[in-house]
């Protein structure tokens, strides 16, 4: 991990100095998780792609101000998840119909895929705020304290959202027979 952090600092330093190859390495390192996180919050592939892409653009445009002693991931994930929550809230207000929560399901040959379709459906039943804390905690592996910082929430709120989100998730999965 320390090696990766060291590499990341070098990529950021290179990108800040204008190196396209360092930027590409940084992008390839962080894109998959950013895109996946956005998708799990918004449950819409096209929107997730837009959100992850716009978040990268925002991060790259502010790269000169970035303190490279800090990890890039939390900075990016803060942007991604907040934008995803905003998008999901806006869609809920628009009350779209006909575009079910699943634009696509997991590919069968991926690890853990056997659990994925019901899990995606169960996640879709949660509010965007609950989906976000579950994704941050269990996909991106932030601690509740770090999530509180990323989302600018009191830690107690993060804890209760995590607890409630997981409870609801378990209920939905149970109802689906998993």
């Amino acid at each position, binding site marked *: 991990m320390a090696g990766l952090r060291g590499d990341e600092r070098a990529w950021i*330093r290179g*990108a*800040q*100095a204008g190196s*396209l190859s360092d*930027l*590409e390495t940084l*992008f*390839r390192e962080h*894109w998959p998780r950013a*895109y*996946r996180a956005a*998708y799990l919050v918004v449950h819409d*592939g096209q929107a*997730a*792609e837009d959100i*992850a*892409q716009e978040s990268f*653009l925002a991060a*790259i*445009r502010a790269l*000169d101000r970035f*303190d*490279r*002693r800090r990890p890039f991931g939390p900075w990016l994930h803060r942007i991604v998840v907040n934008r995803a929550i905003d998008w999901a809230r806006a869609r809920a207000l628009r009350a779209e119909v006909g575009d079910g929560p699943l*634009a*696509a399901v*997991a*590919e069968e040959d*991926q*690890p*853990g*895929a*056997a*659990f*994925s379709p019901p*899990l*995606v459906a169960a996640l879709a039943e949660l*509010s965007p*705020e609950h989906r976000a804390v579950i*994704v941050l905690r*269990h*996909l991106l592996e932030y601690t509740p*304290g770090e999530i509180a*910082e990323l989302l*600018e*929430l*009191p*830690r*107690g*709120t993060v*804890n*209760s959202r995590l*607890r*409630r989100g997981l*409870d*609801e998730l*378990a*209920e939905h*999965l149970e109802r689906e027979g998993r």
Partner: protein
Amino acid sequence: MNERRLRQALLGIGPPDEIGAQRRAWRVVRTDFGKREPSPWPIRHRRPVAAVAIAVAALAAALTPPGRAVIDEVRDAVGTQKVVGVPQAKPALFSLPTQGRVLVSASTGAWIVSAQGSRRKLGDYDEATWSPRGLFVGVSRRHQLAAVTPKGEVRWTLSRPNVHDPRWSPSGFRIAYLSGSNLRVVAGDGTGDRRIDAAQDVAPAWRPGAKHVLAYADRGGTVTVIETDENQTLWTAAGVAARPTQLEWSADATRLLVVRGLAGGRFALVVFDAGGRRIQTLDFAGSFVDAAFAPNNHRIAVVRRLGLRSELLVAEADTLRRQQAVFGGLGRFSDVAWSPGGRWLLLGWESADQWLFIRSADVSKIKANSSLAVQFDPGGTGAGEFPRIEGWCCPE
């Protein structure tokens, strides 16, 4: 599904056309990157500037009275972010500096700390709330709300889905709590449970007094003040008060503090009078952590995070603009609570694994206690969540 399987399953969910999406995004990012202006200030100059900024921050802490007291006692290994806290801290929580009992939620359950420092575990509960005179504690875990005595004896339980944020009314006759996305109220003896409204995930706040008046954030994020026995809405506030993160009444029931997050890493304190008239609003830099009204006046203790540092401020709710920086330190502070008489503030310093008792009148005295996490995890390592301060209540 356990945590490991949940993570595996989340990793196994394939967003549509991952490779195509990555290719398209990279094209856009690369093009945008090609248009950027070279940095006018090379980043290599920033490290010494950051070091100076940290030194200035430390100096700023030193200029406040508590800062002077602890300036040599707080150090931060830049790069490792290890916060040592107050070295002269007592190695454990031996006693409280004044009367009363502190209610704590830890990863091991709910606990009461007596004035003599003894700790009693109430049970495996997630959250807890004092009854007004400390004769009972309302506790919640998963799908259960319960009332227990300070010895942990269960008086009654109520099963409801996803119970959290219980709050015992100052009259003693009601408990408000959130069940899923619903605000509910039950009598103090566990009877008459009923739904009040759909609500956001924000702890409701009872207005002190004999009437059962409650402030909460409704489903749309509007702050709503309701008389719960009659189900009569007294007033609402949206706009600058919408989507709050915390609600607090002053002890004399004449002020409602609404805290809400703002864009750009800021937050706002909004103060209303009892009739719903907004009397103060002020934006603050940093991330909001916690706030508490003093038990005997309109002073508010506010904890915020500012970059690497955290800060405890005390402000007068009626003016807000004259804030006293009570204590600043590196790393994360957690909760703040006033002692029953309002003479002491209890501040959780999560990064240092310490509780600080700060004499609030002149901020001249700080008592620190270390190794908090392990004290609420007997036999364990204290690796769980830092203990959360739920309230500092009345003497036994």
